[in-house]
């Protein structure tokens, strides 16, 4: 969470001479990351205090006026202005030519002397947001400086008159450190980092004025839900509601809060300064003068300060009066019980709420606030008293506040500081350098830890300050405090020594990498698709969604299934890219998630290779089979194709299961036309799907080697005319079984068409015949005759010349 901390405010607690840049840098390095440094007066150069003398209509524009402004020593300038709230005698901020401002709070511009609709304008009368102060003054109006300046300020720089020469740190704190989301917490961090001397309000007892008079009002506090509200402090004060003085308004503005009235301003001030959220109720609006901290009832309605109505549910913690909720505890106050200009008496609340309950409630109501953001991080019960004391002090000062009740302080139990142990030698052993014990103790002390010796040598007892209640959970947490204050930038870099352990490799990863290289090296593009798929896509692809895992809380219904197959994604990818170049050859090699009863799913590496073309059929099949062959030949796996056992997404005539030693290791072939159609794809698609762990079982990684023969092979060609229904595989088998010399057959031509009889195909093959000696042409001829005779007698082949 980010917090805006004005440097000047921080310096009230951390006395320092360090310049703002160095300060911010060091603060970042110890863990309080200053993400931005905002110069408060970045838009205030050449912006001076002026006073409006005359307002005349603009001759050429209805919404503009010509304003004569007194700027110094009785000199005036003419400025064209569109502000709706200007009036004669008003003090205003005048940006002179050369000033750099945020036009309408947005576009940064450098002003020039100019003409607006034909009238000269010497500068600009500014709205607050144009000078970098959002949310001050009316929406479209200029910034009225009436109560902030006096006549002698005319002509003076606004930044000087209003004391705006400051820098704001925008600090990102980790969620475990709500103490650092306040001015005092940052000051303490800075001082612990040796940036200054700390004046820590938390080291003194909280001073809430005691009330000894007679009760003026009937007022009670009761807490029904002490688990959700471990501490509730309530106090009555008579107050005079009005605007806050400028010094307080300014601090709020710089810290990003909008001044409202002195009472609300004080509650915000305390939150920003100490980190304790505060709330003020109008006591007169509370039924029965009661504060009851209880669970909401189902169906209870609540009008919040954001002017919306919320339906509350059982279990949400509310602050109620005698009859109805007046606040959602720690989240937001009610509209009807809020402080108005008519308020005379307030209930000042300083409480502690259980973070989980806060989170559950705001999530359920979708209602957030600055208080909620702090409470959900977890605050100490001890902080509440400091918040109460500070708020009372401020209200006495600026709202003529009078305490008119004793403080009602309902708490769950007595507070005990946590205790852990510091072992300086263990600190050094984990960090890797030597930091002496006194230095370690000094660091912890500056952070507010109280250290004392124990009976055991080298072991110190460490009492945790209340503001670190939530994040310090073990001895080891103290090591981090020392390490970060020592400065990670001051640590040397070492390369880990020690033996390098032998760990069994995931060998399938190697195979996966080889296959990816093989495919990407021969024209395929690798796809990474989402693990989440649309269950409908699974059905379209003929994949049973029940094989995969269902996500209970998907981002969208079409991402609700953890894929049990790579096919649906591949088809979706092809459909999405169908009319783009480059879709022709895609592959994906990733894991699928196969449901298993009572256990985590089988996360299985699958290969999916795709080829897209216009025609389909035998040619497409041969191409996808080629991709299978390069993989099988690399791993020396002999495979067979079987038309049996094909599942529904495959074209029944153009697909086959890949069998290795009786195991099915995958499928290849054309996608069923119905599936293709279901994805709205116009092309033909051939896929190769391989179950890699299954294939891995059959891979031979250390192939056997045979010496190349020194005797030349005889090469013969053979052209055949054969019936269409006779497969190439049958012809191949016949040739092989009927020859003793035939070593290799290579198909180099396949023809069907008008040049030959219909119902026939023409094939041409290269044959390699060889033996362990040099063959005579008579021997080769004799063997060839056996081959051709067998082809003729078995398959009625016609041998062509």
């Amino acid at each position, binding site marked *: 969470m980010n917090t805006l901390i004005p440097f000047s405010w921080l310096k009230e607690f951390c006395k320092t001479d360090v310049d703002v840049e160095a300060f911010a840098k060091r603060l970042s390095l110890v863990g309080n990351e200053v993400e931005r440094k905002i110069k408060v007066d970045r838009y205030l150069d050449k912006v001076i205090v002026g006073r409006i003398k005359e307002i005349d209509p603009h001759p050429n524009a209805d919404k503009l006026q010509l304003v004569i402004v007194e700027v110094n020593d009785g000199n005036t300038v003419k400025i064209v202005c569109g502000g709706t709230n200007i009036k004669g005698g008003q003090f205003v901020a005048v940006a002179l030519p050369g000033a750099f401002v945020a036009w309408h709070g947005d576009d940064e511009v450098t002003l020039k002397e100019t003409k607006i609709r034909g009238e000269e304008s010497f500068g600009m009368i500014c709205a607050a947001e144009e000078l970098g102060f959002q949310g001050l003054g009316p929406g479209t109006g200029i910034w009225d400086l009436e109560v902030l300046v006096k006549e002698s300020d005319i002509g003076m720089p606004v930044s000087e008159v209003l004391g705006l020469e400051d820098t704001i740190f925008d600090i990102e704190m980790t969620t475990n450190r709500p103490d650092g989301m306040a001015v005092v917490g940052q000051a303490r961090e800075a001082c612990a980092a040796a940036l200054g001397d700390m004046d820590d309000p938390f080291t003194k007892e909280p001073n809430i004025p005691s009330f000894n008079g007679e009760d003026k009002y009937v007022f009670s506090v009761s807490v029904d839900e002490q688990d959700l509200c471990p501490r509730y402090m309530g106090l009555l004060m008579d107050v005079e509601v009005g605007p806050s003085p400028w010094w307080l308004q300014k601090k709020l503005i710089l810290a990003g809060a909008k001044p409202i009235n002195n009472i609300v301003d004080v509650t915000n001030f305390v939150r920003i300064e100490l980190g304790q959220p505060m709330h003020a109720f109008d006591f007169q609006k509370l039924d029965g003068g009661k504060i009851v901290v209880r669970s909401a009832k189902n169906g209870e309605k609540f009008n919040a300060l954001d002017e919306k109505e919320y339906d509350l549910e059982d279990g949400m913690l509310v602050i109620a009066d005698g009859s109805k909720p007046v606040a959602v505890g720690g989240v937001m106050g009610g509209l009807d019980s809020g402080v108005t200009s008519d308020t005379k008496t307030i209930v000042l609340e300083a409480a502690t709420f259980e973070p989980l309950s806060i989170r559950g409630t705001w999530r359920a109501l979708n209602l957030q606030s600055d208080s909620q953001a702090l409470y959900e991080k977890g605050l100490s019960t001890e902080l509440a008293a400091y918040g109460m004391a500070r708020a009372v002090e401020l209200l006495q000062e600026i709202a003529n506040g009078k305490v008119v009740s004793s403080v009602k302080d309902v708490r769950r139990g007595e507070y005990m500081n946590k205790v852990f142990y510091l072992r300086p030698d263990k600190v050094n052993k984990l960090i*890797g350098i030597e930091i002496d014990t006194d230095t370690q103790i000094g660091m912890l002390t500056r952070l507010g830890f109280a250290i004392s010796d124990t009976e055991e040598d080298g072991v110190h007892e460490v009492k945790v300050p209340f503001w670190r209640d939530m994040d310090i959970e073990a001895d080891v947490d103290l090591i981090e405090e020392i390490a970060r204050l020592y400065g990670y930038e001051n640590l040397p870099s070492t390369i880990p020594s020690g033996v390098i*352990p032998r760990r069994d490799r995931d060998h399938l990863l190697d195979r996966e990498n080889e296959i990816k290289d093989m495919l990407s090296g021969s024209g395929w593009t690798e796809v990474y698709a989402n693990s989440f798929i649309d269950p409908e896509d699974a059905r379209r692809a003929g994949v049973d969604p029940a094989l995969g895992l269902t*996500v209970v809380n998907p981002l969208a219904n079409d991402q609700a299934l953890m894929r049990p197959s790579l096919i649906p994604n591949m088809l979706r990818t092809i459909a999405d890219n169908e009319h783009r170049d480059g*879709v022709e050859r895609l592959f994906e090699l990733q*894991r699928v998630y196969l449901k298993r009863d009572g256990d985590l799913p089988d996360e299985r590496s699958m290969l999916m290779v795709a080829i897209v073309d216009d025609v389909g059929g035998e040619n497409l099949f041969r191409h996808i089979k080629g991709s299978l062959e390069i993989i099988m030949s690399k791993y020396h796996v002999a495979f067979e194709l079987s038309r049996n056992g094909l599942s529904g997404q495959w074209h029944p005539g153009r697909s086959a299961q890949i069998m290795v030693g009786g195991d099915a290791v995958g499928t290849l072939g054309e996608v069923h036309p119905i599936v293709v159609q279901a994805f709205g794809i116009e092309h033909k698609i051939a896929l190769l799907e391989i179950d890699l762990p299954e294939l891995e079982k059959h891979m031979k990684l250390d192939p056997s080697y045979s010496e190349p023969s020194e005797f030349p092979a005889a090469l013969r060609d053979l052209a055949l005319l054969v019936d269409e229904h006779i497969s190439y595989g049958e012809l191949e088998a016949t040739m092989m079984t009927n020859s003793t010399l035939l070593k290799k057959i290579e198909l180099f031509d396949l023809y069907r068409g008008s040049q030959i009889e219909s119902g026939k195909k023409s094939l041409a093959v290269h044959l390699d015949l060889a033996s362990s000696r040099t063959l005579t042409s008579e021997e080769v001829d004799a063997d060839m005759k056996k081959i051709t005779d067998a082809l003729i007698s078995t398959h009625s082949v016609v041998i062509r010349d």
Partner: protein
Amino acid sequence: MSFKDELQTLKTSFEGDLGSVADSDQLEALRVKYLGRKSGLQDVMRLLKDMSVDERKAAGQEANEAKRSMEIAVEAKDLELERVRLEGLATEEAVDITLPGIAPPVGHLHMTTTAIREIEAIFARLGFTRVRHPEVEWEWYAFETLRVGPDHPARDNWETFFIDAPTDDKKGKMVLTPHTTNGDVREMERGDLPIRMMNINKTYRRQSDVSHVPMFHQFEGLLIDEGVTVTDLKGLFDHFAKEYFGPEREIRLRPHHFRFTEPSFEVDISCGLCQGIGCRMCKDGWVELGGAGMLHPDVLRAGGVDPEKYSGLAFGWGLERTVSMRAGLNISDLRTMYSGDVRFLQQF
């Protein structure tokens, strides 16, 4: 005409013809005309048979000399023609080198595959073995053993994906792991020490916008040994930063907060765009790389490792983020990486 005259005429004619020979075809035609079986020389030779023995001997010798000299001339011419041809290669056999190439089929590895390999290789040199622990995981390993209790916001169902499966009595619900840290306790449970593990895997979080993909990758390094220190962690990242991003890059550690490490760090690297001066892409010259820390003693105990004897460091970083930081790729919407758009895929 006398034999001599005939021979002289032949030679004169040969020399004249030879002078006008311009290529090897013409030279061959010349050779056939003067030295072949039906050549002018054979005609002259036929005159020999009407001569006396003495005359024939002298004339024969003369004829042979003439033949020999013509053969030498032809060979010389042949060599000369070859020399001229070779000299003329640059112009005579020039091809148009501006025509587009005819490429072999080339495919593309996904940039994530390439990045995984590079990162794996850098840590492999320091003895880290790449393994894969589950993506679909029990809360036990994804949260519980990492000190992320049941009430932690990360376990809300608006942060983490849950799987529709029965809850395990001990291990809790089934989730999609939001970080590769789920492998840490699993690795320890194997019982082998010391450990140098690199778990690169898919991880899942319920976020989808231009800078977040609900499915992304992390690489998790885990080092457990006796005497592992914060300075080791710093050295490890220094090594990685220089190897992966370049020797001129620096790293820094900032304190941070993670439940499973103590101390915890955010690791920054000096900005590659402005060389650490500060620009719109970085914070004061630094860019966040990722989180890391020294393993919390409770986490070591959860994995059966004695924290009194051993210490460990762990880091789990977003791969997509790391890649895009190096390459200055300016992928305006990270979701493009896993959209399957070939126009993206084929640029890598």
